[in-house]
């Protein structure tokens, strides 16, 4: 019988205690794996969401934050706009690789629900916008035929709600004109799914917003320093610059504080588990004081006793980590849903991304800590004096 088998049999002799210790380690591993997975998944999903916007920088009129609230509360009245001439200037800039003008327009629909509701339309340029949103795929149809077409492209959910198919007519709240559905986008998992897109010129004309824009999306040349360019944009009066990098950093810093708290709790859980292992193994050494003495008297060397006790710790920690890893895979969805409930901003896509590196890291960290924690009881056991132990009452 080798020492590992002996260690395993020793653990089996105290099933309840061993079981609880393993559960403690499993829970710590579960938390650790989930947190590491969250760390990776959140950032990846956020990057994907930001990239999906297609712009590096968005320009809006100064005061937009307050107007955003207005848009929600008053159905889009009193919006602030930027002029198309600004877009023309930006578009001519050599540092800009592409720019697209957009006009968001909200209308109050009195026939939506009992008290009415707000409908939002996005006017986009039929040439530049599709280039920037090159990842858009059509479920059916395509973009508008020309800049003044009385046509709409619907996001997936907008088409679902309005029950529109290609060729169907649509009536836009606030206008008496009829529009033809020419494209339905595939689901993107972003805000675009709920959007009703119109040609920019059409939207401006129909809702009497000629030469006005609410946003300009900008992509820079690869060699251009984005921060320096943003500083340049800040010099334009009455303009607000929102860089996607800024947005990402803001969200990450918002989440970082939550992460610190959660990681601290995880670290405490981790320490509790380690001390639990230490306590369990140390208790078992004290309980088997005489037994270890007998083993030594029949020829077991201190190194054999050390290896046996150490083996028990390794088995407890590795077993617990494996169970914890299985838990984290099984309950990843639940953990994700819980995280979504508490996060200030949760991007689309998977928030918890479990990978082999994470699993190996967590397994190694827990097992290694257990191994270190097992040294003390193993040394105590190895130094037991056989005669003293056999003579003792315990």
């Amino acid at each position: 019988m080798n020492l590992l088998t002996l260690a395993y049999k020793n653990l089996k002799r105290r099933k309840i205690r061993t079981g609880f210790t393993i559960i403690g380690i499993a829970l710590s591993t579960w938390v650790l794996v989930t947190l590491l997975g969250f760390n990776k998944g959140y950032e990846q999903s956020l990057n994907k969401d930001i990239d999906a916007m297609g712009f590096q920088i968005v320009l809006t009129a100064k005061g937009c934050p307050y107007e955003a609230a207005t848009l929600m509360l008053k159905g889009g009245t009193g919006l602030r706009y930027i002029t198309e001439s600004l877009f023309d200037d930006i578009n001519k800039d050599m540092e800009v690789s592409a720019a697209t003008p957009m006009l968001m327009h909200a209308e109050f629909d009195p026939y939506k629900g009992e008290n009415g509701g707000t409908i939002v339309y996005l006017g986009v340029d039929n040439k530049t916008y599709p280039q920037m949103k090159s990842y858009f795929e059509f479920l059916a149809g395509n973009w508008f035929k020309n800049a003044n077409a009385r046509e709409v492209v619907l996001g997936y959910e907008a088409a679902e709600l309005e029950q529109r198919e290609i060729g169907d007519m649509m009536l836009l709240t606030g206008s008496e004109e009829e529009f033809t559905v020419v494209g339905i986008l595939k689901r993107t998992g972003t805000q675009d799914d709920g959007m009703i897109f119109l040609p920019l010129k059409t939207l401006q004309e129909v809702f009497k917003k000629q030469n006005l824009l609410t946003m300009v999306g900008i992509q820079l040349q690869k060699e251009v320093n984005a921060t320096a360019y943003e500083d340049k944009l800040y010099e334009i009066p009455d303009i607000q610059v929102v860089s996607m990098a800024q947005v990402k950093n803001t969200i990450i810093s918002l989440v970082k504080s939550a992460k610190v708290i959660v990681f601290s709790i995880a670290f405490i859980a981790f320490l509790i588990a380690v001390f639990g292992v230490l306590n369990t193994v140390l208790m078992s050494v004290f309980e088997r004081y005489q037994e270890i003495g007998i083993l030594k008297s029949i020829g077991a060397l201190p190194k054999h006793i050390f290896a046996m006790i150490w083996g028990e710790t390794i088995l407890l920690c590795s077993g617990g980590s494996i169970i914890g890893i299985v838990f984290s895979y099984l309950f990843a969805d639940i953990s994700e849903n819980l995280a979504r409930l508490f996060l200030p901003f949760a991007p689309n896509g998977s928030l918890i991304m479990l990978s082999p590196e994470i699993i190996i890291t967590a397994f190694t960290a827990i097992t290694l800590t257990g191994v270190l924690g097992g040294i003390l009881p193993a040394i105590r056991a190895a130094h037991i004096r056989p005669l003293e132990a056999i003579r003792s009452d315990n």
Partner: protein
Amino acid sequence: MKKILSFLICLLWSANVYAAVGCDLNDPDRDVKRFFPNSTGYKTEYLSVEKAGGKELYNQMENELGDNFSGIYEKIDVPYTLYTVLDNETPVGYIHGVNQKGKYGGMQVFLTTDTKGIITNFYFQKLTSKNAKRLRSSDFGNQFVGLSLADFKDYDVQTGQAKNGSKINAIRNPAPESSDDFYAALRGVKKNLILMQHFIFDKQEQK
């Protein structure tokens, strides 16, 4: 920081504009009380033709409607929300809505019935029409009060015709220039009543 947060609010808000795709009441607490002022509560159930009877029931309902189901809102697995209105523990009526394709957009046609399936209220929760105001008027909706599935049985949703003497022929279109929406509304009502029959009243008869 403030502007970025506001920008995020903008993004999130626009994402939520069309977040709900089911045919639920927008504000069940308020709407139930509006339709059944003396009610003390309600129970919500989520049902689908797939769960209620599968493909066989789906085909049967198409036959009863006299038209093929089409589009994503008439698939077998579409979730329907049934509100059973209670007076203490006793059901006093039902509220059920369906999505119906209109000429210019989706319609949400809600009916409230008593415990025997007689319509007590007709309500367009959502309607896009050139004559939405007239179609949403109480004068139009009140014409459905007192009708039941039995009255709609001989109504052909494809031609918009019913047998002579049918109560459906008495329903006046308040906006003749929007006849497509008027007939879509009638189709929505018939479909709604058929669904309610299978979801509620058939089960009651079986008991």
